[in-house]
């Protein structure tokens, strides 16, 4: 297949060279797993089902990893792109089984002891971000869950890099005031 190499920026070119050095997929896995896992936790607002969603995402993306052997950054974008769809499916399926109020109760926890626990802080964040637009919640999860830089977030969301920085700054300020 003819491949275009003239694309500026992170446009990914494909599989033209058979003899490219194979990336260390074990290292890619070690690097991406905590990012993806925490991204899922941030998006779901807790640890419930985070492992299941993370596993499903990895299994889908891993099948196509050979396409990204010359562009590991592209694999990361691919991974998080899949994660967004898997999470959307998961939330949709969860809604069909459980009313939203019940889901919030599960996420918020109960006792004061639990409130100070680590997981409850995440639920607290979910409560605070619950009223934010979807785009802001997504940016928070990508920045602080996946720990992606603004450039990668821009690539994933279609926003400009400066726009990502501006939105995040505004949202984090608001969250810090309410924390």
């Amino acid at each position, binding site marked *: 297949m003819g491949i275009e190499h003239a694309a500026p920026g*992170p446009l990914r070119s494909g599989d033209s060279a058979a003899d490219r050095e194979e990336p260390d997929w074990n290292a890619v896995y070690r690097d991406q797993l905590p990012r993806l896992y925490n991204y899922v936790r941030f998006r779901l607002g807790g640890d419930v089902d985070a492992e299941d969603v993370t596993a499903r995402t990895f299994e889908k993306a891993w099948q196509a990893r050979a396409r990204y052997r010359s562009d590991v950054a592209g694999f990361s974008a691919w991974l998080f792109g899949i994660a967004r769809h898997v999470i959307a499916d998961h939330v949709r399926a969860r809604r069909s089984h459980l009313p939203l109020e019940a889901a919030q109760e599960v996420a918020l926890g109960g006792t004061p002891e639990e409130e100070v626990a680590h997981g409850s802080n995440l639920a607290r964040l979910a409560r605070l971000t619950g009223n934010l637009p979807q785009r802001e919640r997504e940016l928070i999860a990508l920045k602080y869950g996946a720990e992606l830089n603004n450039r990668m977030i821009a690539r994933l969301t279609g926003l400009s890099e400066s726009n990502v920085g501006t939105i995040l700054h505004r949202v984090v300020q608001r969250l810090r005031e309410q924390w």
Partner: protein
Amino acid sequence: MNDEFLHHLRTAPTAQFAAALKARLDRQPYRPPTARPGSRRFTVGIALLLGAATFALALVLSPELRALMGRARISTPVMTAEPVASIRTHRPLTAPPRAQPGVPHERAGQESLPTLPGEVAGTTAAEPRAPDDSDVRPLATPAEGTVPVQPISIITAHELYELTHASAVQFTRDGRYPEPRLAEGSASQALARFCGPSASARPDLISTARRMRAGEYQSCRGNGSGELSESKMPYRTAAGTLTLYVYIRQGGPEPVGFRDFLRTYWLALVAEAERPTPAERARPDLYFFDALEPEDLQP
């Protein structure tokens, strides 16, 4: 910006989970992508050889078939040799057909195509005609004044890369057309290139996971892209169902074989569309392009 409280919310996945997932992933087969098209080409080549041998044997053994072939009037497409250097590809290809009046690119016997924007119905369908002397050209003679053949340029959404790649492989299988240049990118990247100021850098076709915005449309028009056509369809992926948008330009020069590629691509897309009915599968034109109405676009 003090955002430490957000960083502290992260936690590492358990080692047990990480190990179990890695073990599951390691059981998945790993197939380097370059091996597949080659082996597919080899398989197709063998199948074609077997088919040709069977047909030749039937011709020898069956007088009825010989008589039938003698009565049939078959038009022979003209193949002229293009300088290989004028085609930017990674492997040698059979030369594409040279455009001549009355010599269609379509093969005789193909089904009728859905009408595309700017296309006059019937202009691409094959017109059977008797071969004449002008059809006889030595394959090895380079055509005089040959214009370098530009391959179709495509930027595809990540979700559609594999399907687009497969369509391009199928499109070039018989060697009539140069291989498309295929790149992968986000909707913003694809639209920026599609609407860019440099006409030579614009792809001929893009597929995106979101619709063009009004500002992007204005940018297209401002840069002289002309009228655009859009098609959208639900598309089923492993990660769920997406709405995909495919954009092409109306009018203007088209790369060789563009409509053939659109047909191949669209049949592949329709096959993957969300729950197509048998009638939809049989009529890919249901999904074909409409002129883009800028009033409908989001800012």
